[in-house]
């Protein structure tokens, strides 16, 4: 195998358009490029001059899959800039919305995108015939996420009801309770999903990059924390408001998305379900923790391929957590009615954990509440540099052991999909 170029144009079963090129010479990886060819839509520039009322509506459209996360992140930035405190109930409903998107995303990613890799099919559709029960149950799980998002946000993607300071509409107690029951009933299947993915054979290697996740004392945060943590090569905790001081974005010619590195040490890093589990393992619910341990996933878990299992564990955790939140909300305490908004000049940074990692929106407003400057970074953009390093590592390892080009190619695609990249989101 003197010189081989492995190229996959339009990596399938990922959200968005990406190509990968790996050049191997005499068993040594010479070059890896993760080309992000998604059309640029210039969100950071187009929101300039627009009212805060429109900002979250527009930035929701950065990504269909992560729309709930982008909306909540943007609203948090707006609220920080204007000094708005949201009610406890609003925060809980937001968490429900974010988790709804976790259920949608993880189920879609694991089954529609990832599973075909492990059953040697091009798509999920053959599974409808070969294993109709699994297919039906997987769709049911994803459907539950959709319905939760629809109930809370008004539709399954691009939530309608979430606005600065609260929600314009909320479902009744009976619906919350019905959801709680459904969530709990779905837990056993989610546990099976963890087992299923734990059983898939993956290459054994470890990422050399760092990791980034939201952290919160005694909680597994997805939108409720104001603290971020880098870990791996030294732990570094900082306020979400300072996110862009610690994350360094840079432009490369083969990608429409900006790449990112940890500012303090210049290393690439991973932000994903795997990073969350590593950071907040202690705060996973009991059922999820047991499922995770049983699957052999416990910190430090550094094989990026394990992100699939990590997502499955999060499914278990999300179901239980959502059921609890639903029961709490059904008690009807507090209100989600949007808090009054008084625009003023200022800067706000919103950070949440999107299904595939940390998303940051930084917005600067003038005194009329119009955007002066916007900076947005998405988990996939942050992951790209690390992904390239991991591909180099994996391909090198396989090439060294004389693996065929076909298998290297398949494993590289598997790795890319394990990161659950959201490419259109990364080029925004």
């Amino acid at each position, binding site marked *: 195998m003197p010189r081989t170029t492995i190229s996959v144009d339009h990596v399938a079963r990922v959200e968005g358009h990406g190509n990968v090129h790996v050049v191997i010479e005499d068993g040594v990886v010479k070059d890896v490029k993760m080309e992000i060819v998604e059309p640029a839509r210039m969100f950071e520039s187009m929101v300039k001059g627009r009212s805060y009322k429109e900002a979250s509506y527009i930035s929701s459209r950065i990504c269909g899959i992560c729309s709930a996360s982008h909306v909540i992140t943007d609203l948090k930035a707006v609220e920080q800039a204007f000094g708005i405190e949201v009610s406890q109930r609003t925060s809980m409903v937001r968490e429900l919305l974010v988790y709804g998107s976790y259920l949608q995303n993880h189920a879609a990613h694991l089954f529609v995108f990832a599973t075909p890799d492990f059953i040697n099919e091009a798509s999920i559709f053959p599974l409808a015939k070969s294993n109709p029960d699994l297919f039906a149950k997987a769709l049911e799980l994803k459907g539950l996420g959709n319905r939760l998002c*629809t109930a809370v946000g008004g539709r399954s993607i691009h939530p309608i009801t979430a606005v600065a300071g609260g929600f314009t509409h909320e479902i009744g107690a009976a619906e919350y309770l019905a959801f709680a029951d459904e969530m709990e009933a779905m837990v056993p299947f989610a546990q099976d999903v963890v087992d299923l993915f734990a059983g898939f054979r993956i290459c054994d290697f470890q990422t050399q990059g760092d990791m980034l996740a939201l952290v919160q004392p005694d909680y597994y945060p997805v939108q409720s924390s104001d603290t971020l943590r880098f870990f791996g090569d030294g732990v570094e905790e900082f306020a979400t408001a300072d996110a862009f001081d610690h994350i360094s974005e840079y432009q490369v010619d083969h990608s429409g998305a900006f790449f990112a590195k940890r500012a303090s040490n210049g290393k690439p890093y991973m932000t994903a379900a795997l990073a969350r589990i590593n950071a907040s393992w202690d705060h996973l619910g009991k059922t999820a923790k047991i499922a995770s341990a049983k699957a052999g996933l416990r910190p430090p878990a550094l094989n990026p391929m394990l992100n699939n299992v990590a997502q499955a564990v999060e499914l278990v955790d999300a179901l239980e957590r959502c059921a609890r939140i639903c029961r709490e909300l059904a008690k009807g305490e507090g209100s989600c009615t949007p808090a009054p908004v008084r625009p003023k000049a200022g800067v706000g940074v919103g950070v949440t954990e999107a299904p595939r990692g940390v998303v940051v929106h930084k917005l600067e407003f003038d005194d009329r509440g119009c955007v002066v400057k916007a900076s947005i970074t998405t988990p996939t953009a942050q992951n790209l540099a690390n992904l390239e390093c991991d591909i180099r590592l994996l391909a090198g390892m396989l090439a060294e052991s004389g693996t065929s080009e076909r298998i290297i190619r398949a494993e590289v695609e598997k790795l890319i999909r394990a990161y659950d990249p959201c490419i259109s989101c990364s080029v925004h």
Partner: protein
Amino acid sequence: MMNSLRAPFGNDGHVCECAQHINSISGRMEIDPLGNYSYPLSGQELMAMNPYRPWSARITSITELTETEKLFEFRFIDERIRNAFRHKPGQFVEVSIFGVGEAPISISSSPTKEGFFELCVRRAGAFTQVLHEMQCGDIVGIRGPFGRGFPLDLMRGHDVLCVAGGLGIAPLRSLINNIHDERSSFKKVTIIYGSRTPSEVMFRDQFEMWRHRKDFDLYLTVDHPDDGWDGHVGLVTAPIPTLELNPNDTFGAICGPPVMYKFVVEEMRKRNISYDHIYMSFERHMKCGMGKCGHCQIGHQYCCVDGPVFNYWEAKNIQGSM
């Protein structure tokens, strides 16, 4: 939840009913697809059942008339309905192709022919496109007949002057064929039929035969003649001033594109045909056929029940008719 949000409007969550008979005690309506009625069924009984329910009819013959027009022959599958179906010239039926929709089409065959009816259909939109692709033996749904047709009873014993433009020949053909089948009940019958080009002239053979047999005085006219054209050239109004006609004894019957009416009526009035002896068929999109849905309204009149055939006096009294 998703469905309730989806419901296009409103929140009347009650799934709706399909109706045949109303049982006033339980407020329940039932439908039997074939109908559970005594035989034979009168036309009135046919309509007295759920008037929104189309009845299956089979296409039994298709004739290509021009590039864009076909003549379809239909027969109801249920014999009782086939026998009960009676129409008047100028009336229309609602044709259903389920999934595609429903469209009002005027009946082109004479009431004197029983057991089947014919529709002359121009390919003009999504519905007629699908209908044109159908084959003999295919099934459609039919409701009707609806509307007020030409006043045959009044016309009997008198002269009749029919003026048709383009597809307007479709409803008039029903009248003309009917007259032909009871030819002795009518006096002098004149037909003026205008088309854009010779290739768009429909039912030419039939007309030629009648002309040959001197059943009717026939004026076929086109706007753009070709080399083989031996008929007239020009507007349908052109022959009217020179016709031999007895104004007190003549009924006019007009059907054609909207712009035609004004001019034809003018010429007929010049010949002193009375306001209420000039009958014309209006084109509107009748959706229900029963004077409810409003789509075919002209002023305060409903084309589907008060028309589609109006006399000129009535039409003059409708705001916005011409």
